[in-house]
């Protein structure tokens, strides 16, 4: 089975059902299907071939939803990129995956106009909301996406299928400890397997209505869309959780049954007077992407006693690893549960042997949801994918340390590397440090995560300046905000006289983290 079949099957069985509610518009399954077919036809006419990579660079929108499915229908590989990504990184990703197509909107096209590096592989750009008059730096074919979606000259039926389920469906870029983002290669089989397991344990039904406020460029958000279509349900798509009362209203107004969140959202939700509201339709809340504080779980359970709460854990390289069955949430709120259906998980010690109960070791995942590797990075792939129990088989070594209790429930202990988790997203300190090092006047920089009630971890930059240079925290943050995705921009900046060093001359981050008095409160107020 292929991922685009989720939409095709739902459209065939319930053509008039509402598939998507977004920005005040409602779309039936048959409408989304015909838009996706037309865009697939346009992509093929524009030169996109089986196996080509096509980047989507869009805010959550109908166009973003249709683009993912159209790329798959065209036999190509979708590459979702965060809409706050800046020019240099967008170019890096376009070139790294040798993308032949880009789907974006008029506002974001400006990022490409600022592209100085050049993107030689890219030849087609599909633009939502109209094509501006400015010329692109390099010659590209521009297509008016909004017009193409409803163009009767393009076929409303799907193009002939060319892919099989072990072909790539997606490349999802994730922060790597090297500082360069890595493209996680996912096949149709990987995605269909993960979506099947997850909808199975969530007991999703066709009458489910899922509210997604997470970016579709983030795999947790992306899967809400894919799973809603897989079950023939309805997706309510929002751009953000920024205005919480709007979300409260939507939960009731749209009779939402499923609400996926990250702990940053539960922190904000719990600042509201939730007791003043009732959510009679709400069946479940899921949380993943960062440690779900047991205090949040306890308070949500008291406020929403009839809502099932799923505490989960996963990583892009296999999508989801585990979930805690809701009947266990009051018994072991600190656990992220057990492996999901059709997947095996175990813990290995330093020698690679399966560890006994209670022992801390690296979590290993075995299943058809495990990625094929990192795009063009064989060495990094070999560090994560290692030989499994069957000849030729590869299993995923997650890099995350866990212990397992006697009944097989998993408890997260820590990471093997220094990746920061903020707002549920992974941030490589190296990537932020490279941006800081490139700032005129900066001699040295170190980036660490500090505990934060809302963000999970907030990003803190410590910077040593040249003696003759004066910079403010706001200037440093501004520099970063021009070059990094919003969630990667430091909340705090401290200026250091000298950094503690390890015996090999590297900055000793453990010492920095221990010595640092953690500022809290409003970001950017620290000078």
């Amino acid at each position, binding site marked *: 089975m292929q991922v685009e079949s989720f939409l095709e099957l739902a459209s065939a069985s319930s053509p008039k059902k509402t598939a998507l509610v977004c920005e005040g518009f409602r779309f039936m399954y048959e409408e989304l299907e015909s838009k996706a077919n037309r865009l697939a036809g346009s992509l093929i006419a524009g030169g996109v071939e089986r196996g080509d990579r096509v980047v989507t660079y869009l805010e959550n929108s109908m166009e973003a939803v249709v683009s993912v499915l159209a790329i798959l229908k065209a036999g190509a590989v979708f590459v979702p990129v965060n809409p706050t990504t800046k020019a240099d990184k967008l170019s890096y990703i376009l070139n790294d995956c040798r993308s032949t197509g880009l789907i974006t909107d008029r*506002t974001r096209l400006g990022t490409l106009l600022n592209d100085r590096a050049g993107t030689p592989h890219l030849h087609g750009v599909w633009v939502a909301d109209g094509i501006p008059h400015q010329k692109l730096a390099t010659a590209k074919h521009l297509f008016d996406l909004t017009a193409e979606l409803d163009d009767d000259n393009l076929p409303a039926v799907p193009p002939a299928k060319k892919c099989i389920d072990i072909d790539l469906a997606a490349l999802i870029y994730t922060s790597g400890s090297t500082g360069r983002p890595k493209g996680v290669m996912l096949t149709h089989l990987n995605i269909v397997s993960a979506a099947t397991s997850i909808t199975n344990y969530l007991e999703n039904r066709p009458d489910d209505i899922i509210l997604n406020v997470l970016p579709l460029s983030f795999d947790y958000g992306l899967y809400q869309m894919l799973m809603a279509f897989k079950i023939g349900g309805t997706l309510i798509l929002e751009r953000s959780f920024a205005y919480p*009362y709007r979300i409260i*209203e939507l939960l009731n107004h749209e009779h939402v049954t499923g609400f996926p969140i990250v702990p*940053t959202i539960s922190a904000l939700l719990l600042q509201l007077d939730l007791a003043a509201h009732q959510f009679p339709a709400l069946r479940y809340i899921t949380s993943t992407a960062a440690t779900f504080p047991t205090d949040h779980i306890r308070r949500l359970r008291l406020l929403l006693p009839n809502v099932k709460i799923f505490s989960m854990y996963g990583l892009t390289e296999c999508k989801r690893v585990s979930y805690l069955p809701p009947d266990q949430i009051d018994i072991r709120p600190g656990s992220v549960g057990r492996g999901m259906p059709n997947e095996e998980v175990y813990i290995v010690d330093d020698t690679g042997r399966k560890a006994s109960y209670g022992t801390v070791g690296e979590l290993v995942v075995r299943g058809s949801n495990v990625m094929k590797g990192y795009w063009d990075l064989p060495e990094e792939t070999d560090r994560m994918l290692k030989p499994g129990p069957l000849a030729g088989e590869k299993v995923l070594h997650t890099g995350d340390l866990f212990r397992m209790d006697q009944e097989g429930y998993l408890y997260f202990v820590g990471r093997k590397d220094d990746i920061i988790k903020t707002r549920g997203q992974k941030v490589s300190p190296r990537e932020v440090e490279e941006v800081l090092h490139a700032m005129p006047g900066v001699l040295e920089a170190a980036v660490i995560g500090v505990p934060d009630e809302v963000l999970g971890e907030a990003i803190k930059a410590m910077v040593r300046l040249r003696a003759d240079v004066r910079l403010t925290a706001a200037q440093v943050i501004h520099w970063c905000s021009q070059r990094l995705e919003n969630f990667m921009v430091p*909340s705090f900046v401290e200026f250091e006289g000298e950094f503690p060093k390890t015996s090999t001359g590297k900055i000793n981050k453990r010492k920095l983290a221990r010595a640092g008095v953690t500022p809290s409160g409003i970001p950017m107020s620290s000078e």
Partner: protein
Amino acid sequence: MLLHDELRKFVTDSFMFGELYDGFSDGDSFLEQGIIDSTAVLELIAFLEERYAIKLQDRDLIPDNLDSVNGLARFVESRLQSH
């Protein structure tokens, strides 16, 4: 300072690093322009409550009130008048 100017200044100083980009208008959605997120909204609320001595209720936290300079000005004016 006029209410609009003061609110615009807060938004530009706090979320846009003091730089208005070309074509920014008081009617533009902060979310669509990518200049605000959940934590920035918390800052905005703290500013409104302190500067104008108003208390925001949960039901006030909607884009109509908070997502543009015009929306903010309208909201603050209505709350100041009702005092």
